[in-house]
């Protein structure tokens, strides 16, 4: 057991969960003092001792399922032979989802639909097993991930069609918009539930086939804060969006607190003298003025051309979400033309919506729609140089891939001379910089710092340090 536990913890650490030694000891002791045959208690014991953040739950779940789940299911079934779980498998039950291989796919689909409608969990579980047996076509030893088999199964089950029919069934003639919406969400939730059952089934079969360690590797999920913004798939993108809101709130709280507590202000002579009167003129209590919060002005200049658009969206979103922590935030976006988008954020209090509108409304293409940093920067200086002050911090977001246009680095030099600091955030890995048409090295001398910024973790660290 201890070996299994330590390889499980090894897996969690590989994913990036910060599991300390004392937490490992806690987990082991927790397992010692409970009945490990109780699966849900076993899971809770590991989860409560090893995972200390809500964002890490799904990574834990994925790893746990691979390492432990199969063992329980098999024990469960064999130990309960003769009672309901086993009968559901062997004889046609009133649930209506008995797996007899002679049935046609259509019959099976009908029964599955019935089970979905009644939310009969046991029948659904059996249905998931049958669906995988029928459609996944799992080939032993073939090193593909579960996603491939899941896709095959889902497609042949025609779950979209099933979802549509579920909606019809539950609507039952009602036609107002609200009932429709509720029915749609309900059907969707049921299908999702079933899909995750299918996923579990596939995973269990694969673990049996290939072993836990190999399987863990192929289902490994990236933690939300470590997802590479440039290469995120749709699901990861959605996860990032979800993480972004609480993250920006946290960041705002932290910045505000730091401003308040960082250091005391200058000596307050009047109050010091006043308080010294009670000690016979000896200034025992030295009083200080409260610190004056120095809120920086931020100017964001973001490349929104296709290659780095998603990164720019996130950064703009984050900066504006915490804009109360800066005295002013102005945003400019460019491809080869430049446009100010600050007003989009001012018009709505939902940064996500503003970011959506940027792509529709901002006028960023002047010539051919290929990024031209030189042109964009000189446009910026022409129009806005007079508005830059010593309190301004300029953030430039982009990969510095200039499509072989002239760099015009001297323009950036002018900007740097006028402001407090210039930072360049590049969403590309450091090793790609200055290769091909990337000319970051021409701009870098005029920046206070050039940072690789590919994940929320890096972005948060950078924005948190702004002052």
């Amino acid at each position, binding site marked *: 057991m201890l070996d299994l536990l330590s390889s499980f913890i090894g897996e969690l650490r590989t994913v990036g969960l910060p599991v300390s030694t004392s937490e490992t000891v806690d987990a082991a*002791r927790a397992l010692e003092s409970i009945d490990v045959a109780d699966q849900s208690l076993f899971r809770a014991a590991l989860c409560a001792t090893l995972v200390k953040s809500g964002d890490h739950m799904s990574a834990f779940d994925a790893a746990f399922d691979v390492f432990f789940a199969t063992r329980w299911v098999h024990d469960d079934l064999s130990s309960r032979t003769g009672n309901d779980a086993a009968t559901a498998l062997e004889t046609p039950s009133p649930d209506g989802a008995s797996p007899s291989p002679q049935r046609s796919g259509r019959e099976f689909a009908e029964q599955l639909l019935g089970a979905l409608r009644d939310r009969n969990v046991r029948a659904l579980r059996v249905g998931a097993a049958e669906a995988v047996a029928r459609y996944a076509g799992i080939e032993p030893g073939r090193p593909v991930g579960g996603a491939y088999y899941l896709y095959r199964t889902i497609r042949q089950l025609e779950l979209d069609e099933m979802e549509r029919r579920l909606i019809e069934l539950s609507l039952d003639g009602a036609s107002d918009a609200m009932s429709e919406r509720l029915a749609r969400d309900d059907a969707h939730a049921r299908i999702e539930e079933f899909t995750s059952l299918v996923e579990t089934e596939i995973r269990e079969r694969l673990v049996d086939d290939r072993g836990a360690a190999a399987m863990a590797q192929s289902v490994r999920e990236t933690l939300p804060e470590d997802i590479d913004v440039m290469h995120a798939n749709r699901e990861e993108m959605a996860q990032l969006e979800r993480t972004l809101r609480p993250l920006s709130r946290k960041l705002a709280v932290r910045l505000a607190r730091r401003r308040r507590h960082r250091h005391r202000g200058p000596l307050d002579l009047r109050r010091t003298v006043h308080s010294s009167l009670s000690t016979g003129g000896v200034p025992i209590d030295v009083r200080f003025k409260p610190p004056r919060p120095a809120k920086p002005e931020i100017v964001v200049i973001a490349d929104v051309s296709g290659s780095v658009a998603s990164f720019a969206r996130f950064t703009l979103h984050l900066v504006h979400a915490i804009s109360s922590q800066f005295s002013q935030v102005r945003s400019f976006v460019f491809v080869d033309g430049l446009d100010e988008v600050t007003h989009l954020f001012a018009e709505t209090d939902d940064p996500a919506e503003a970011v959506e509108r940027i792509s529709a409304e901002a006028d960023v293409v002047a010539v051919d729609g290929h990024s031209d940093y030189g042109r964009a920067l000189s446009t910026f200086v022409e129009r806005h140089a007079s508005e830059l002050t010593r309190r301004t911090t300029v953030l430039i977001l982009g990969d510095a891939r200039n499509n072989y246009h002239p760099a015009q680095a001297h323009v950036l030099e002018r900007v740097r001379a006028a402001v407090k600091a210039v930072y360049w955030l590049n969403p590309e890995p450091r090793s790609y910089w200055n290769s091909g048409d990337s000319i970051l090295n021409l701009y870098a001398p005029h920046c206070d710092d050039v940072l690789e910024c590919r994940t929320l973790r890096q972005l948060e660290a950078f924005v948190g340090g702004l002052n």
Partner: protein
Amino acid sequence: MSALDPRDELAQRLGLSEVPPVRFASPDDLRRRLAEHDYLSSAAISSVTFLADRLAKPVLVEGPAGTGKTALAKAVAESLGARLIRLQCYEGLDESKALYEWNYRKQLLRIQAGRPEGSAEVWAELEEDIFSEEFLLARPLLEAITATDPVVLLIDEVDRVELETEALLLEILSEYQVSIPELGTLHARQIPMVFLTSNNTRELSEALKRRCLYLHVGYPDVDRERDIIMSRVPGIATALAEQIAHVVRTLRMMDLKKSPSVSETLDWARTLVILGREEIGEDVVAETLHILLKYQTDIEKATREIFGRVS
């Protein structure tokens, strides 16, 4: 060599004459007893709370506002017939409000009352006297440690205190003791159950998290939410409770500034019962949406998405 049971070990360290028995026989027992006090727990909640008792460790409960984190501690206290000692955290909370404070007025009185002819011997006695437990004002944490009757300690919204203040809690959470320089170390006289809640407005320190079991409480699923409504809103029809749970789920699936919490769901359910509604139609939802959603932009967005029209 087999390690000592966590409860045995802690009891030994605290110098208790006997190991206090575990309070709950199993997660199911816990769930049943909480249900008697109208708290419907999920499998995760009952398992982790059970473990907290079994392992004698504090629980850090984290999750969105209004999902029953504080209610959990209250329900556990009620089901045990224990006194709930609550420390509400806020920015600027310090030792003298959380742990203990010397009652200096009383100390002064004592000094003035008994000052005969100012000899050194008397002073030593006096010093020992004024720094005794009699002159100590117990704040919630010390109170929980020194209590002899059964108590449940709730440290509410721990994410509101500054990172530095968190350190105040560490000794209690890991050792169940409080050190007072003038007096020595006070050990707990029992193994109290300790709950910490956090709305996750900032990252808590590793040190704090390490000492606790972690429980994430999210929004309940449709079935549990329906059951919660049924148990908390007397006289509500099952069908109505079910519909309410569905509407709330749909709202939570939208990208809103603030999703409706369980307590807001309950408020809504009560309103509908008072209005004498048997089922939910579009008109009722439109009229009472402001009970569930607290931002105008959210209300507009929800109206647009649910009814497909502008409010």
